[in-house]
């Protein structure tokens, strides 16, 4: 369950430090960031939103390494296919 959507922080509201304005694909909403106590949040950071609350700050480093893994598999697969094709040609 639990729809969670990534959104980018536009600003932390100066008069309400538990609220941030967050952008999801050009759509904006105030999101409660009270559950991310202790996290340094600033514009440009990405958070996971659920029912108007931020549950987690998205770790861009981790996201990148996961994608690299997937690209690695894609590359290995492409290499294998190519090797297979070359072996057929010979």
């Amino acid at each position, binding site marked *: *369950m*639990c*729809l969670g*959507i990534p959104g980018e922080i536009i600003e932390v509201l100066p008069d309400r430090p538990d609220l941030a304005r967050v952008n*999801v*694909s*050009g*759509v*904006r*909403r*105030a999101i409660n960031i009270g559950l991310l106590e202790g996290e340094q949040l600033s514009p440009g950071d990405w958070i996971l*939103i*659920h*029912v108007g609350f931020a549950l987690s700050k998205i770790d861009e480093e981790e996201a990148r390494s996961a994608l690299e893994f997937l690209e690695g598999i894609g590359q290995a697969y492409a290499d294998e296919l190519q090797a297979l094709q070359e072996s057929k040609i010979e």
Partner: protein
Amino acid sequence: MSPPGMSEQRSAAWAEAAVAEHEDHELAQYPSGREHPSREQQVLERIERARRRKPKIKEERITLAHGAGGKATHTLIEAVFLEAFRNPLLEQLDDGAVFTADGARLAFTTDSFVVSPLFFPGGDIGELAVNGTVNDLAMSGARPTYLSAGFILKEGFPVADLQRIASSMARAAEAAGVQVVTGDTKVVQRGKADGCYINTTGVGLIEHGLTLGPSQVRPGDAVLVSGPIGDHGITIMLARGELDIETDLTSDTAPLHGPVEGLLAATTGVRCLRDATRGGVATILNEVARASDVAVVVDERAIPVRDEVRGASEILGIDPLYVASEGRFVAIVDGAKAETALDALRSHPLGEGAAIIGHVKDDPPTLVLLKTEFGGTRIVDVLIGDPLPRIC
């Protein structure tokens, strides 16, 4: 096993009744153990039979789902109105009726508008009321001519608002080349209605020889949309303010007789035109698949959807395919004429964002299939009620 304090227990009468009703149907269907290719296939056939059974209204009262344009609306129309008024013109359940009077082919249609809020980014109820009926006529392939306008107003409704609505109707009528030639006004007591409701009825002239409609579609045809979908529905959902979501999105409400005229002039291969209002593109394609007994295969990557509509849809857990537009339509055309049709649409300002989104096949009949952007396949079913925001 029941824990202490929960000894009282009953069953859900409605659920037991549903089980019993279908057991009877199944017994009648399978008198003896007939052999079937596979159990799953057998189950799928059983479901198809259940779906084709005459619709019956199970609810005791009207709910909002009955007005949402999905399955519940269809059940209501077929079980109540078609049952009462049955005639060959109505039975086609088209956007408008097409008939001949004194040698002239006429299209005739009516629509009521209850949008809330009355004024929203990109339009208001007045503009919507004119465009909605103009578009229903245009979808019959007609040139819209005359409109009626009926108003149901709440006691206490500001006259200034009514003037604003009337003047935007006048502007919309002028833009569409129609005249509002008759009308009606009723005022109801405070608390009986919500501000202002409008009904418009329209007549149009058909000046081509084609027969258009969801039952005219055949395998090999191409499916087009005239532009990005869902702008209106998302704009209204957000304009109500309950979700506290901001966006720069505006309604797409527009009169569509222009691009339709261009399309019909460019090719005689047009089979079916439908504006993608309540229930969205998905609902229209399901009507087509059902009416023509064909499969409609749509490529998700080809469907134009604005970023904001996608973003709001992701947040709210809804599918843009079911979200209403008020200035977009689906055109199904002969596959060989797909590019001609696309060029014709794109040459009109209201069709700039047009795209070919799919094709019609013969099998599996009555289904709408989506080739997903991820490369998988799924069904696009008829919506049961309004798209509801979900959290899970």
